[in-house]
């Protein structure tokens, strides 16, 4: 190569770049048409699974594909506001798949899509009725007395209440992923409700639930213009099949909210948001007071540093409130709220660190 000719002007390089650009233009056109038509959407949540327990709309799935070398089983409790496939988004980009391939026996407690029948479901119904039964089913299916219980977002609150509120919970490890406990730090997400501008009943529709659209609007308004930059980035990467697939998967999930059961929503607003009751370290549940410090076992408080849905200050007090002070650990992850399920950061940091922690606190293979 002539050193006086810049590499960009080198005829061979130039030809390669022209070829690449032509190829990318063709791929952009093809993927653009597919995207506009809405065809070739990725299939989501495809890690093989079987339903091991079901009551009403709640289902417990057991994932297959790994050799299940470690115990106790890992039971993931999902939130009530979004779809659980965020943790099993696409093959090769799925937390569930990663955990399963590492040799863990993974279960997911999915709440389904609430309708009129679920309008009266309160937190007691989830924590004291569904969860004990689902976890018994996981224990029976796995043959272990204990469980590793992992809750994501509001699912973390339910997991903590279950672990603290049941003497027979047998939770060896409690993993709280982006679990809000200090609702005064939740920002715009709850400001309308916290300051009494809106009452919960003003958001509940004729089915008795908060409609999915209202929840989507709440999330959308956190960053209303960011979609422009996302679409521009998509345009630039439209030639890249994997990028387009990932983009479509995330776009589908972020619009795919589920109605929030009315009774649980009223409790959430009154107790968690307005009274910020979790910060007192205990919460009334049914006819008793549940003390968060009563959680037995190891506690991992995992948070995402750039989470704008559940900001770290809302999560940090877990380290003062939940479980035994000597058995609490904190895990700070780069990335946003979805880093627990998808993205480059998830694959690089979240999945290996979470899996490593669980394996370190599990029984080693015999």
């Amino acid at each position, binding site marked *: 190569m002539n050193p006086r000719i810049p590499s960009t002007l080198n005829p061979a390089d130039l030809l390669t770049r022209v070829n690449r650009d032509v190829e990318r233009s063709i791929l952009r056109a093809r993927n653009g048409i597919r995207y506009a038509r809405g065809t070739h959407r990725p299939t989501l949540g495809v890690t093989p699974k079987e339903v091991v*327990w079901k*009551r*009403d709309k709640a289902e417990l799935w057991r994932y297959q594909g790994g050799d299940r070398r470690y115990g106790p089983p890992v039971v993931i409790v999902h939130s009530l506001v979004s779809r659980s496939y965020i943790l099993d988004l696409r093959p090769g980009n799925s937390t569930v798949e990663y955990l399963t391939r590492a040799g863990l026996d993974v279960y997911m407690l999915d709440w389904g899509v609430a*309708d*009129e*029948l679920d*309008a*009266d479901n309160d937190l007691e119904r989830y924590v004291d009725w569904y969860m004990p039964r689902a976890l018994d*089913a996981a224990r*029976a299916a796995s043959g272990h007395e204990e469980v590793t219980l992992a809750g994501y977002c509001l699912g973390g609150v339910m997991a903590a209440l279950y672990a603290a509120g049941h003497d027979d919970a047998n939770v060896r490890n409690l993993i709280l992923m982006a679990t809000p406990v200090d609702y005064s730090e939740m*920002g*715009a997400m709850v*400001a*309308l409700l916290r*300051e009494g*501008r*809106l009452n919960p009943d*003003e*958001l509940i529709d*004729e089915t*008795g639930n908060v409609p999915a659209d209202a929840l989507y609007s709440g999330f959308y*308004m*956190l*960053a*209303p*213009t*960011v979609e*422009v*930059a996302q679409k*521009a*980035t998509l345009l*630039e990467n439209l030639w890249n099949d994997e990028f387009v697939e990932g983009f479509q998967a995330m776009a589908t999930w972020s619009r795919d909210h589920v109605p929030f059961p009315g009774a649980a929503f009223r409790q959430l607003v009154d107790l968690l948001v307005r009274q910020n009751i979790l910060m007192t370290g205990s919460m009334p549940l049914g006819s008793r007071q549940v003390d968060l410090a009563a959680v037995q076992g190891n506690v991992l408080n995992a948070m995402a540093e750039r989470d704008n849905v559940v900001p770290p200050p809302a999560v940090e007090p877990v380290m003062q409130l939940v479980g035994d002070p000597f058995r609490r650990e904190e895990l700070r992850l780069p990335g946003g709220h979805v880093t627990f399920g998808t993205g480059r950061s998830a694959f690089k940091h979240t999945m290996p660190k979470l899996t490593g922690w669980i394996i370190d606190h599990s029984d080693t293979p015999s």
Partner: protein
Amino acid sequence: MPANQPLWLRAVIRIERAIGEPIESAVRSDTYFDVISATTRVRRKVLGTAEGVSKRCLHLLNLPAGSDIRGMRQQLARMERRINQLSHDVAELDEDESGPGVR
């Protein structure tokens, strides 16, 4: 911002941030919250009034209104929920009688 991004994309992202940041602070302001709560209340009030008028008209013709159907659906849902609960209770009693290990 990744260094290999083309100039046009960098420009779009910068413009988006320049516009987006003030909008994001606006949608976190008290004024915005007041507007949203007022809009929600007005919308519910207007819908309620329209529904009340149409309900009276339909009842004059001895026809059920949407709110009647809604009420009935809610009652049905409560009843279905009660039946589901009873069937779960019965199933659990059966399981208990069948002995441990049976699910």
